């Protein structure tokens, strides 16, 4: 069941990524919603689920892109595993620490993705720092806000019920 939820979340992120960049939000291309979901899954479910989520999501993005199949997959696999390990070794429950994890995960992903392309002599990335920094900030913000909303929603109904006076 958990696997289905993770798969559905990744599929939703993938579809949203294509729809939002194509239709609605200018500059949404700076965000990587799929990476955000991979990091979220890794933080909440651990390194193995993070690794599997990263592999599936990265390969799907590669398959829909114009590059080499597997490079994005490898980058997201490593990021999913690494974030999962960080989530099990450290307490990452405060918004600030999550912000740092999302930002660092984005930077790691960009370094792996670009490093592999440059290392294989397939592409060059002249001055990518501004784009990576923008994406790290965007992903971190959206990731932390999404995290807070997901944690906040289940408790909302209970809090409302608790506030309601008892009927006699």
């Amino acid at each position, binding site marked *: 069941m958990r696997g289905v939820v993770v798969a559905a979340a990744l*599929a939703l992120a*993938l*579809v949203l*990524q*294509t*729809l*939002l*960049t*194509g*239709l609605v939000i*200018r500059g949404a*291309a*700076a*965000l*990587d919603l*799929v990476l955000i979901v991979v990091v979220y899954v890794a933080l909440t479910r*651990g*390194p*193995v689920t993070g*690794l*599997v989520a990263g*592999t599936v999501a990265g*390969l*799907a*993005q*590669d*398959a*829909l*892109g*114009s*590059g*080499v*199949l*597997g*490079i*994005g*997959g*490898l980058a997201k*696999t*490593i990021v999913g*595993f690494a974030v*999962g390990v960080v989530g099990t070794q450290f307490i990452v429950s405060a918004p600030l620490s999550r912000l740092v994890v999302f930002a660092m995960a984005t930077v790691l992903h960009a370094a792996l*993705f670009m490093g*592999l392309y440059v290392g*294989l002599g*397939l*592409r060059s*990335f*002249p001055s990518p720092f501004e784009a990576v920094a923008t*994406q790290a900030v965007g992903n971190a913000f959206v990731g932390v806000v999404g995290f807070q909303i997901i944690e906040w929603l289940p408790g909302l109904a209970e809090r409302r019920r608790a506030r309601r006076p008892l009927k006699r």
Partner: protein
Amino acid sequence: MAIADIRQRPGVLFVSAILLHVVIISTQVNAPSGRPLLSALTFGVVGEVQRASMGVVRGVQGAWGGYVALHEVQEENARLEQQVQTLQVRLQEQRAMAERAQSLRQLLELRERAGLDTVAAEVIAGPASPDFRTVTIDRGSREGLAADMSVISPAGVVGRVIQPSARAAIVQLIVDRNAAAGALIERSRVQGVVLGVGSETLQLEYVSDTADVQPGDLVVTSGIDGIHPKGFVIGTVDRVDAGTNGFHVIAVRPAVDFSRLEEVLVVVTPPPGRALTDPGP
């Protein structure tokens, strides 16, 4: 039981996943022979999901708009205001329809002017990853689309088809990092190769530093790449700098505004020297 064992050994799983990716990458980098099966299958499925999602989004928009309109009609006190709002909405709709008609007219004019067999298509989705500059269009192999067909718009060259499925296709924009096209400066007929760099500008390379190139020069397709027909506008020269290897460093501003791309034409006539059945690289 076996799955449970693997989950207890994340290190083994991690190394296995890395090896899997390395194998996948190696097969493509060493032997680039078309798109892999996994890629085609994934796009076939996701293309349908994108079409369905767009249908749902439009359906929800329609249902929501209808509900709100009906709800507001019931408010008698706001009848006049409602009428004004309705007229404003209609005016906006008319404007949108006029803009769309204008856009389609330009497309039709381009089709007639170009004298090529083309298929009109609508952009239905953006890239799946911010690392790639691609769009998905609503026409595929059923309409005769194949890989490496040129995609153009009234403003100029858009890119090329890289992966058609039955009813949709992925188009690699000319600004994508993996994109390139044979080009020439219209005024001086100097030839070069236009390369995408992943941003909103292009680079014109392999132009000798003695060649006559000036900012403002129009850059058009040369037709030697076997993909884009000759003479279509790519963009204008933005900046010319001195290079170090005997070549100019030339920045080109694309003629097409890729953030506002809605309708395109896919050229189904192969350029001279390349048959449709050519499997490509």
